[in-house]
């Protein structure tokens, strides 16, 4: 199998082809042969630049250590080059305190379970993924930059390295394969030591979605990024609650002292439903809520996970989808669109970072392009959302086009026509002609001009109460001529509508 070996100090990369199966000492020897006269044993190897690769049994193949073809391995001659975090379990207390306040810590069990269960994917690889995630994202300005390998185009390798991956066998096959299940599977495999039942599966799956959106889990107490969640194996089968905290890598690196701006996810399970609430931690506003049916999603995710276990590498055929990937997608979509994305938008908005992909971050000409495709009413609805959108949708030419589409009327007019208003009046006229019969029966307030429909205010006519003078004597005073359309309008005093148009003072 092919491996890339990179020096920790100089960042030179070597491409090596090692025989299958190969053991760690053999690899060291090959490296030594290539590089320098130093004996093989003085080389230290690591996957994540932090933890050293060690094989307790020298005959262990590299695969059992978690190396796969195409992996990037760091080497150094310095025996302390990889300042290991000591015992793996000693790092746990820091992070286990952070997992949640109500969940008991079963991390000791986790560790021992991990290695045999995750056939060949030891913790250090998972850590490397997290560790890589944090520094990689810091360099990117865009919050939504995803550094993980999407796995789309590589036929055979689980390479977690964020930077510059070139296909192993020289040619890349682009697969028509969606990456979400693959990503989900990968995170699940790492986090899920044993089998914690449906609850755990879903919680970790949600965690995966948050990660994909660019969030990084932080310890709620200290605010530092937490590498793993130490979720217990035995979860109470009935209702339980737990909470997780997330932030953005940029924020985490920015504020090292205090708790960075973060987002809290609260899980509540009730029967076979899990409800997840998400909100901004500091402001406690903008509550988002989604509800997941465990019975529906857990089995699917389980199946997908199991399928992934059988072949550690990616599915060979990107073709017909056998298991219900559709359900996985639906799960993904519910969590992402309902929770992760809105929370991301809230957080970035609050902090002042550039927004992730959403409508507002489209360039203006693209927004206008989309508006052109909308019918008139929907355009007006969009215009009612905020002042910025109202300004965007008030383009006269745009409204002219809508008017023509809707009413197919003559288009040459004298002078400057406010097409938006014309549209509004014509629309209103159309509505009125339909309502003629009921109009006589309900003489009280009937007219509501088109643009007032959008209002939620219960008493939209507060200001006509101030009308007096000419407007009372001549109720029809100031009502504009309806641009040549037959427009029967008996003006009631209270239904006077001033000749205003939104966005202009044409009078």
């Amino acid at each position, binding site marked *: 199998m092919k491996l890339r070996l990179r020096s920790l100090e100089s960042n030179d990369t070597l491409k090596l082809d090692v025989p299958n199966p190969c053991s760690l000492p053999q690899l060291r020897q090959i490296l030594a042969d290539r590089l320098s006269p130093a004996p093989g044993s003085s080389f230290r190897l690591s996957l994540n630049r932090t933890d050293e690769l060690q094989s307790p049994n020298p005959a262990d193949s590299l695969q059992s250590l978690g190396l796969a073809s195409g992996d990037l391995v760091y080497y150094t001659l310095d025996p302390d080059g990889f300042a290991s975090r000591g015992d793996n379990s000693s790092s746990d207390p820091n992070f286990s305190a952070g997992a949640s306040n109500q969940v008991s810590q079963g991390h000791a069990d986790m560790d021992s379970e991990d290695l045999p269960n995750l056939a060949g994917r030891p913790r250090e690889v998972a850590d490397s993924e997290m560790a890589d995630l944090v520094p990689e994202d810091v360099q990117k300005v865009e919050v*939504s*930059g*995803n*550094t993980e*390998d*999407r796995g*789309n*185009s590589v036929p055979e390798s689980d390479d977690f390295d*964020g*930077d*510059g*991956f*070139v*296909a192993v066998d020289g*040619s*890349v096959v*682009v*697969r028509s394969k969606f*990456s979400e299940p693959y990503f989900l599977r990968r995170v699940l495999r790492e986090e899920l030591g044993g089998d914690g039942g449906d609850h755990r599966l879903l919680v970790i799956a949600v965690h995966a979605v948050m990660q994909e*959106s660019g969030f990084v889990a932080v310890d709620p107490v200290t605010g530092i990024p937490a590498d793993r969640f130490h979720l217990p194996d035995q979860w109470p089968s009935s209702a339980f609650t737990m909470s997780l905290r997330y932030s953005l890598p940029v924020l985490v690196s920015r504020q090292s002292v205090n708790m960075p701006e973060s987002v809290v996810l609260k899980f509540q399970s009730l029967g076979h439903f899990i409800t997840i609430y998400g909100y901004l931690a500091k402001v406690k506003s903008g509550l988002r809520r989604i509800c997941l049916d465990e019975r529906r999603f857990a089995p699917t995710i389980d199946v997908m996970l199991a399928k992934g276990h059988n072949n550690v590498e990616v599915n060979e055929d990107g073709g017909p989808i056998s298991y219900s990937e559709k359900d996985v*997608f*639906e799960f993904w979509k519910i969590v*992402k*669109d309902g929770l992760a*994305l809105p929370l991301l*938008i809230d957080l970035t*908005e609050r902090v002042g970072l550039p927004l992730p*992909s*959403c*409508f*507002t*971050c489209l*360039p203006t000409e*693209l927004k206008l392009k*989309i508006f052109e495709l*909308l*019918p008139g009413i*929907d355009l007006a*609805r*969009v215009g*009612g*959302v*905020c*002042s910025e*959108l109202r300004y965007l949708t008030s383009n006269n030419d745009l409204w002219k086009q809508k008017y023509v589409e809707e009413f197919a009327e003559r288009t040459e007019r004298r002078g400057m026509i406010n097409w938006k208003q014309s549209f509004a009046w014509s629309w209103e006229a159309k509505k009125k002609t339909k309502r003629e019969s009921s109009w006589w029966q309900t003489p009280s307030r009937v007219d509501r001009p088109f643009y007032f429909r*959008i*209002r*939620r*205010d219960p008493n939209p006519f*507060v*200001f006509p109460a101030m009308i007096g003078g*000419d407007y009372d004597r001549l109720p029809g*005073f*100031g009502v504009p001529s309806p641009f040549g359309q037959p427009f029967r309008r008996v003006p009631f005093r209270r239904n006077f509508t*001033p*000749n*205003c*148009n939104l966005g202009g*003072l044409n*009078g």
Partner: protein
Amino acid sequence: MASSRKITLRSSDGESFEVEEAVAVESQTIKHMIEDDCADNAIPLPNVTSKILAKVIEYCKKHVDASKAEDRVNDEDLKAWDAAFIKVDQVDQATLFDLILAANYLNIKSLLDLTCQTVADMIKGNLFPVRNEWLNFTFSIANRELVLVCLTEWVAHRRLFCS
């Protein structure tokens, strides 16, 4: 005509995709880069992530294949494929908007039209209810604002007509 020369495209996160030239030139941007002879090594696309680039390539490939086969026969099939490609429950919003931005950057008109139409349909169909986080705003007007607008205009109007 260059016979299926392979072009390498590199996404923003460093992944390389090798595609036939015919597929790559569906994008006007890439086409111009090739014509200007910048395409010796991989073409870097710093605005497109690998996930999105994979989807774009899939789209272009399908369209190139469809046009190579009999022209008219596959029109409806192609439309059906397009609909499935961009189907609302297959593609989440972030991906959809990323696709729009990518199609805009790469200048692939058909993909841009398809994605914009999808967004317009979403707005039309009110798939996003009143309290609309999708558009990142709420659909109810700030009432004060509207009253203020109308009031100022009414005052101006009054001044004009009554004085």
